[in-house]
């Protein structure tokens, strides 16, 4: 079995968008809802071609808006079909109405996000604000930092979201351009492996004329809390499922990810970056260079932000002296007057006995790359704070300060 499986694996050079499309194909999705917006749209182009070629048997729907994309997905998922959709930037926002209804009706719709800065002005570059703004809507959510991880995350997200203990929609995010448009080696599995890992989707109560049910009747105020509580509970209970699925994934495909955070050179680190997404790739190189110069720098990359691994984050970050949060998102007027990740980090640390200093960096905004020297600059700020015993200010706009 294993030998056969090995034989059918192959490695291809594709970008994140195509990796996501490949994942959808391997998952044998039934319904695809597309609407063009850059940069995610390349995923849909790839899927369109696969359907046209007969490589994938799915209903490919060119929707009339992102709102419709999500509604189509909602309807298809409610009927018992496995659904794939996606968007970027303002497209993600246009569909906003549907996020809560989909998670509330517990439909495991999967959405691929290739991040894009929100308007104005029109900007193709990647900021995480588009997806992050929906983070409390009941969707499982996490970022990949390369095409392979994107591929793997899509498969795992289906498996997690469709688990009867969870039944929640998933947003599988990747940075626009940095992941979505840069090609790299991606190992595509043997279909048999995917079959073993991902059973067919089966919702317990679909819209089936043989077992009629009504989805989403109106409720009384007093019936709201039980339903919300159940949804909250599903989100919490998904944590165990996520861990289990990552284990199984590693056993079948041979790639092991920590479900919550990736730690890089943190063993003896005193200052660490706390971030998510593609810029971690540059961060790893910067850290190595700084390590060469003897600086005790490390990286904690958040892989899953919903459900948020509070205890894990608390436990890890408590080990350090200074935590520098790289935002890559907008949180106008937020806790730190910067991005929204700062609050997520601080809140997890609040209960800790040993709280590090936390500082927020507005870097990679507008989709600009965070270059090595900016990581050095940020490290300097953290080391300064460590020496001083207190931070200079909560938020630095990287590249705009001396």
């Amino acid at each position, binding site marked *: 079995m294993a030998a056969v499986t090995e034989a059918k694996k192959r490695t291809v050079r594709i970008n994140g968008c195509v990796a996501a499309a490949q994942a959808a194909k391997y998952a044998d999705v039934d319904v695809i809802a597309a609407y063009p917006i850059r940069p995610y749209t390349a995923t849909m182009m790839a899927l369109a071609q696969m359907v046209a070629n007969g490589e994938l*048997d799915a209903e490919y729907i060119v929707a009339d808006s992102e709102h419709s994309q999500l509604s*189509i997905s909602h309807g*298809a998922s409610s009927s*018992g079909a496995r659904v794939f959709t996606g968007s970027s930037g303002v497209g993600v926002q246009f569909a906003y*109405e549907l996020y809560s209804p989909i998670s509330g009706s517990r439909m495991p719709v999967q959405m691929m996000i290739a991040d894009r800065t929100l308007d104005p002005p029109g900007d193709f570059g990647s900021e995480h604000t588009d997806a992050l703004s929906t983070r409390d809507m009941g969707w499982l959510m996490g970022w990949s930092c390369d095409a392979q991880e994107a591929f793997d995350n899509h498969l795992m997200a289906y498996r997690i979201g469709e688990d009867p203990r969870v039944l929640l929609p998933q947003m599988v995010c990747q940075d626009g351009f940095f992941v979505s448009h840069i090609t790299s080696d991606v190992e595509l599995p043997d279909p048999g492996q995917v079959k073993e890992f991902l059973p067919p989707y089966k919702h317990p109560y679909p819209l089936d004329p043989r077992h009629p049910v*009504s989805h989403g009747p109106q409720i009384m105020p007093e*019936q709201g809390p039980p339903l919300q509580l159940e949804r909250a509970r599903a989100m919490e209970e998904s944590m165990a499922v996520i861990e289990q699925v990552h284990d199984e994934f590693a056993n079948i495909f041979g790639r092991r990810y920590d479900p919550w955070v990736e730690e890089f050179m943190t063993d003896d680190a005193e200052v660490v970056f706390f971030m998510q997404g593609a810029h971690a790739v540059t961060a790893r190189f910067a850290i190595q260079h700084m390590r060469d110069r003897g600086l005790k720098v490390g990286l904690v990359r958040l892989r899953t932000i919903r459900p948020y691994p509070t205890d894990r984050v608390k436990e890890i970050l408590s080990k350090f002296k200074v935590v520098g949060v790289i935002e890559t998102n907008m949180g106008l007027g937020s806790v730190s007057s910067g991005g929204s990740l700062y609050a997520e980090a601080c809140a997890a640390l609040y209960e800790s006995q040993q709280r590090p200093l936390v500082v927020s960096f507005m870097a990679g905004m507008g989709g600009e790359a965070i270059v090595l020297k900016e990581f050095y600059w940020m490290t300097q700020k953290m080391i300064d704070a460590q020496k001083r015993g207190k931070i200079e200010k909560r938020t630095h706009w990287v590249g705009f300060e001396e």
Partner: protein
Amino acid sequence: MATIEVQRQLLPILDSPNQGARFYNPDLPSTEPFVPGHRTCAGCGPSIQYRMTSKAAGDNTILVGPTGCMYVANSSYLCTPYNVPWAHTQIGSAGSFTAGVAAAYEAMIRKGKWKGAYPNIICEAGDGSASDIGLASISGALYRNHDCLIICYDNEQYANTGIQASSRTPYGGMTTFSPPGPMVPEAKTLFPKDLARMMAAGHPHCYVATASVGYPIDLMNKVRKGLNHKGAAYLMVYTPCQKGFVYETPRSIDLGRLVVECGLYPMWEWNPETRAYNYSFRPASMRPVSEYLKLQGRFGHLHAEHIAKLQKFANEQWRMMGVELPEALIQAADAKNLVNMGSAAEAEEVAQTV
């Protein structure tokens, strides 16, 4: 890739429509996809339409209900009167959610994941959903030609939220968003959006028709034609709103006939094969619009000139259908031959008739 051919249902057309035949209705299917126990108004027109539609469709049916009375009032407090699968969707998602269901069944049947004949997929959108917020999503579903039937149950206003004007609210119709006052004596100043023709013109490959609860068998047959049509179909059904129109509850069906007889709701079918309108439907008689207006409180404030304007509108509708106008209707389009709705004598007469 081996695929399974999708099997479609073919529902028989009922004979002896009330038009031109005896009142004895043809034998109807015995299944009841819509059962009692919901919170719609007594005499609710949309609910009557729901009853007829679901009866025509039968058990192998999936209903989609965008927000509106047929969602809030029908499936209240986690009760459901739907004996077939039904799903609520957002008010702007009428067409898209339905498209999702249709696509799912196409794919699932083709791929062997669901066995059986393709279900009837019906979306029941109110006119608010269909003419305003969900217009694009419905247009999208029609354009893409999903095998489904999208029904606009047209009660000419947002009724669920307490009677607000929609783009289907007729000229002169009073709602809480279009109240009459010294500056706007006629209340609603705009004529309604010609939604069904829009759908026919824009999606000529679809079966499009208008119907009214006043003609049940015709309505049920149009539902069946829409369902039998392979591809998308659109049906606009006049469903009087007891609450919003302010009329006596037993008049629901009566108004459904009157509105057609007064020419305010032309009945036609769009034939996607010949790409032509079929105007052969003729009501038993033609009447002046005032007979329709005087039964409803929402028109109670109208002056003669407003009624004349509505009559002119109705006359244009008749002409559009190629109907020759009797002299009486041409006369009725002149304000000097009319009286105000609010006049005491008129009101007294109404009190006598109901």
